[in-house]
């Protein structure tokens, strides 16, 4: 039992905005009260928030591990020695599993979602997540180019597509449906992409629009806790903001989350005309509360880009002339990996940087826009505190704006935005908002019944330093970090959905599995024995 007293509490889901409030903890949960014998943490001069929740990050599985293999030089840039409690690790943009857990904890993050898992890589992903300590975690299953889905949609068999999705999420222990460049990744298998929502997918008489609307409908019909999680078509391409808006239009009324929208808010018809269309995207979101986004802010410096979006990664490889990894994930998806350096003086990179900040600052409702760098695509997650400072400190933002390529001053609205985020709003975009969008009802807040995942930050003028050095991090009520030192090698839970299933449906796919897959049907599902600790979210239809 534990009581945190005298802390300045920011708990947006319960409407608490900086009030001094006691937090009582028993058996890993937040409770009304605890006896006087409870241990006390005096949080005077500290800010108390729920643990951070990352709604979109790449920390585990096939592509992340391939990225580690592709970039031995990345391992040398950050070497973390073993301590009495923690294990050693390496990797600056793609830290090894243990290091990933520790680094997130050092920022006060306690739950992280791996954002793109091809179904056949689920077991690998979960094995790695077992070795990612400290945090709770879950993963999204990529479905937008899955050949079963494409075939069912081609034949107009919506129910089968729905039953397949339910079976697949159960089999892979996924948390949400992820769509990556719908149709485009399938076309990449023939060296092509799609250029918009109404192009045809090779060999399947379906369009990205059909894939998007069907999966959003399935998401709705299966009552999944999170909206359908979408990486739009035309990522990175000048002028792609139209596709992004069209996607949002097509899914109006559905629960959708668009990810790394910074990469999808570009104007111009070519690279020399590259421009920010963040104001247009923000305007749409300000009118349409059905959608949430995460930003995918870029961080200047070296990083590793990795995505299921194979055709885009090929283009990036051609632009950057850096090494390239490409993979075809049998009937399910694709993958590309390319190292990349974002440069302050490169005008495209500088505008990308500004677009991310414009999205944060122009979207009025913080419950619709969440913190992310699309780690490691825009940059490593360890820079979240730097982004927080850019949002909370107009002077710092202006200094940075003057440092980067001069077209940011000239061509974007960023220099004219005076908004500064409050601590309350930061608490929304980094924990309360993502928890709400994910439907994680027991996370992201400090009300009775919530998981006691709590962070205590020092109250500092420099917000980057403040969010870089939590004084305490608690996981299920246990102090796992104090004064920057990790005190416990905590094993977090893997969170997944458990859906009612049409058992007869399995006979539909068994034959195709035996014919076309490299894995036996019975070996395909990830069993519960895989997990060190888990929490299944039961969904009833």
């Amino acid at each position, binding site marked *: 039992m534990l009581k945190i007293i005298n802390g300045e509490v920011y708990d947006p889901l319960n409407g608490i905005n900086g009030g001094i409030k006691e937090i009582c903890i028993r058996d890993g949960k937040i409770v009304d009260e605890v006896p006087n014998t409870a241990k006390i943490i005096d949080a005077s001069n500290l800010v108390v928030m729920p643990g951070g929740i990352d709604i979109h990050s790449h920390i585990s599985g096939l592509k992340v591990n391939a990225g580690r293999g592709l970039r*031995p*030089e990345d391992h*040398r840039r950050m070497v973390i020695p073993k301590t009495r409690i923690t294990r050693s690790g390496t990797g600056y943009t793609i830290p090894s599993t243990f290091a990933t857990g520790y680094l997130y904890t050092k920022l006060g993050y306690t739950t992280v979602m791996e954002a793109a898992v091809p179904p056949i890589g689920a077991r690998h992903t979960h094995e790695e997540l077992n070795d990612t300590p400290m945090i709770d975690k879950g993963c999204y299953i990529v479905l937008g180019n899955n050949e079963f889905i494409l075939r069912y949609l081609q034949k107009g068999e919506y129910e089968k597509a729905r039953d397949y999705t339910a079976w697949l999420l159960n089999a892979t222990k996924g948390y949400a449906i992820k769509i990556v460049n719908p149709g485009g990744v399938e076309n990449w298998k023939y060296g092509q992409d799609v250029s918009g929502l109404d192009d045809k997918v090779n060999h399947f008489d379906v369009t990205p629009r059909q894939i998007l609307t069907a999966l959003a409908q399935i998401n709705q019909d299966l009552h999944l806790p999170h909206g359908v999680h979408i990486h739009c078509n035309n990522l990175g391409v000048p002028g792609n903001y139209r596709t992004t808006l069209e996607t949002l239009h097509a899914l109006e009324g559905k629960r959708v989350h668009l990810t790394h929208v910074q990469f999808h808010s570009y104007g111009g018809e070519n690279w020399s005309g590259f421009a920010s269309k963040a104001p247009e995207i923000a305007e749409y979101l300000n009118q349409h509360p059905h959608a949430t986004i995460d930003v995918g802010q870029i961080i200047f410096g070296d990083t590793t880009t990795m995505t299921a979006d194979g055709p885009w990664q090929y283009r990036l490889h051609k632009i950057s002339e850096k090494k390239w990894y490409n993979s075809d994930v049998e009937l399910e998806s694709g993958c590309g990996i390319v190292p990349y350096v974002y440069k302050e003086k490169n005008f495209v990179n500088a505008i990308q940087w500004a677009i991310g900040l414009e999205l944060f600052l122009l979207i009025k409702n913080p419950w619709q826009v969440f913190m992310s760098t699309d780690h490691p695509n825009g940059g490593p997650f360890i820079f979240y505190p730097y982004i927080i400072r850019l949002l909370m400190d107009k002077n710092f933002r202006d200094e940075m704006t003057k440092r980067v390529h001069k077209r940011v001053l000239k061509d974007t609205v960023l220099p004219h935005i005076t908004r500064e985020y409050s601590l309350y709003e930061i608490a929304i975009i980094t924990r309360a908002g993502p928890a709400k969008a994910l439907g994680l009802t027991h996370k992201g807040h400090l009300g009775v019944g919530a998981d006691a995942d709590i962070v205590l930050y020092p109250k500092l003028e420099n917000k980057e330093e403040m969010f870089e050095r939590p004084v305490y991090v608690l996981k299920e009520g246990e102090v796992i970090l104090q004064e920057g030192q990790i005190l416990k090698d905590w094993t977090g839970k893997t969170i997944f959905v458990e859906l009612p299933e049409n058992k007869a449906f399995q006979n539909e796919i068994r034959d195709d599995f035996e014919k076309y897959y490299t894995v036996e049907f019975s070996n395909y599902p990830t069993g519960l024995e895989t997990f060190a600790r888990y929490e299944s979210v039961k969904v009833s239809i």
Partner: protein
Amino acid sequence: MILLKLKEKYDIPIEAEVISPDIFFDKTHTELCGLPLYYGNKEKKLGEVFEVEGEKSDQIYLEGDLSKIKKIGFGMSRGKISIKGNVGLHLGAFMKGGEIFVEGDVDSWVGAEMTGGFIRIKGNAGNRVGGIYRGTTVGMNRGTIIVEGNAGYEVGSFMRRGLIVILGNVGDFTGSYMIAGTIFVFGTLGARTGAGMRRGTIVTFNPVSLLPTFKYDTTYTPDFLRVYFHFLKKQGISIKEEYLKGPYRRYHGDISELGKGEILEFAA
């Protein structure tokens, strides 16, 4: 001067990046003896592994079979290390300045990714002399390495600037992915010399079998060789009179990359 004598030969490698003039120059004898080395994953003191004489100097003299001692002179920027005996991996890797002399053989990664300084090896060297660690795209950038014996694979891979001279034979992939710089090989070359090279010069005095992505240009005697030969003679290396006269066959490549590299093959 500081003298280090190895007390006994080890089978398990010892990581000894503390043996560097940059670290030794201001250390008292007691401080020197207390410097940490890693024996496998266990810490040992410099004084346990070596007999230490002298203090506060950037002139270091080492003796013994050091073939399991790794990272001597790692990242050094000044002073001089002289070694009598064989040396282990990573000698002078990331070196910025100063000199290293070895009377004996050295293991792989001598002067890897160095950015300055001078290394001379009397014996043979392992693989990746002046080479890179995996994943690096810009390798050795300034500095000089002379190996009097043979060297292994990937000499000067990804080299950006500087000079590597091998008096003996070398293995495959010499100067692969070279960006610039100069490599002399007086012995024979292995396969795929200069594979992927963008710019830079590889000079050889024996017939070499080239990749099909190298194109013959002309046969001539480049003037600049005289400057290098003058430097090498000053280093006490004898150069045959005919090498001065030439001529040399010039090939350019690797045309699957930028193709501005050159291989000069002695043609008389």
